[in-house]
């Protein structure tokens, strides 16, 4: 049998996904061109302005840089701030893909 919510007020334990998977809010998806991304080109931690500016904290500052599309709302700030113009916002079609 399914476990019932026995809380009498709204609460949850802090965990990944507790605020809802917000990736489906997105109308445009950021796509990284790693031949332009400074961290990838230098092959060492560098720049990371996308990570710094992402309001949802879903950019991983690694080599290469990764964006968690489960939570990315598609705001496009990373693409706007990228000094190498390595991120392109690809608009979804009318079918939502």
């Amino acid at each position, binding site marked *: 049998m*399914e*476990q*019932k*919510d026995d*809380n*009498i*007020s*709204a*609460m*949850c*334990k*802090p*965990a*990944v*996904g*507790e*605020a*809802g998977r917000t990736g489906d809010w997105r109308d445009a998806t950021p796509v990284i061109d790693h031949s332009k991304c400074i961290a990838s080109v230098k092959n060492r931690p560098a720049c990371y302005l996308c990570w710094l500016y992402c309001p949802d904290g879903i950019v991983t500052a690694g080599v290469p840089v990764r964006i968690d599309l489960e939570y990315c709302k598609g705001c496009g700030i990373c693409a706007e701030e990228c000094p190498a113009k390595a991120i392109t916002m690809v608009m979804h079609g009318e079918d939502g893909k």
Partner: protein
Amino acid sequence: MSHVEIMTGNQAAAWGAKLAKVQVISAYPITPSTPVTETISQWVERGELKSEYIRVESEHSVMTVCVSASSVGARTFTATCSHGLLYMHEQLHWAAGSRLPIVLACVNRGVGAPWSIFNDQQDSIAQRDTGWIQIYCRDNQEILDSVLQAYRIAEQVYCPVMVCYDGFILSHTMMPVEIPAAEQVDRFLPPYKPHTILSPEEPRNINPVIFPWQRRDAEGVLRDGYMDIRWKLQNALEKSRDVIVETGREFAEAFGRDHGGMLWTYLTEDAEVLIAGMGSLATEATTAADILRGEGIRAGAVGVRVYRPFPRAEVREAFKNAPAVVVFEKDISYGYEGALCSDIKAALYGAGIRTPIHNFIAGLGGRDVKARELAEAVRSSLAAIAAGTNERQTWLNCVTE
């Protein structure tokens, strides 16, 4: 040992909080409720009450402090009224929605505009739909006793309770009040067990954004949506009636004083007319019933003690055989009628009772209401009912032309 002292209604409320060993008090002064927390602050300052007294800049903050303190497991108390209560309005919803057993003494006072510091019940009636239980007291003893009962009720059903009593009429009037022994209160009132404790060991998000629909959490448990949680609050208030009645009964057994659970009656059995009201106005109604009986009119009085949850069954029982009902109240739902009158009518509808009901709006902004004026109003209503007027609204002692 219990002992009797002569005290005001405000002191009685403070004594209730002291005996309940409240752990956190927050308040902002407002007439006529100020002496409640003034008294408590003196006890805290002298070390007679081991509590945190938190001073803030507004009533809105008062209730946020109460919500926070109650969330981490503290028994919490405050007192306010009128504009202070209205300023708290948003946080009253938060307290109830968070299911926190906070107790608030509401010293009923009219609301502006224009300014009035005097008594009516518009302030607490305007908070009717916040999800708080509301108890209306008749005298100072009932105020002290109701604060104790309020904690026991609140902490069982996890809903906040407003203990309401009329400003100045009770708050500043002295009466003999029996102060029960602390050990006796401890036996009656077990320690507060919070339904959730917010603690660093087990972090939680409390009241995050809730979507309209149900949703699986990170562990895969299907969590309530907004509406499911709100139904739980409604269900808790509906079910709290039994707890309120049982608490009143057990209080009577332990302390020898029975204030009635949801509703009390006076000389109703053979009555040809019932006078209904809440708080001190209902006490006045008992005197009016005596006056009318002295004149050969078999009158009785019904006091609605708990307004939310509304005593649906008790109202039906009390009014089912009454040939006439006259409701006096110190509030008005502008554009319609007195809120109590509407609720009484609504309760009777479901039982098919078609008693004529007259509504008197009385004593707004502290206008005096005397028992003989109530008796006179009842006589005029009986004459109108005999002439076929089943429904009537009258503003007592008021220029309406």
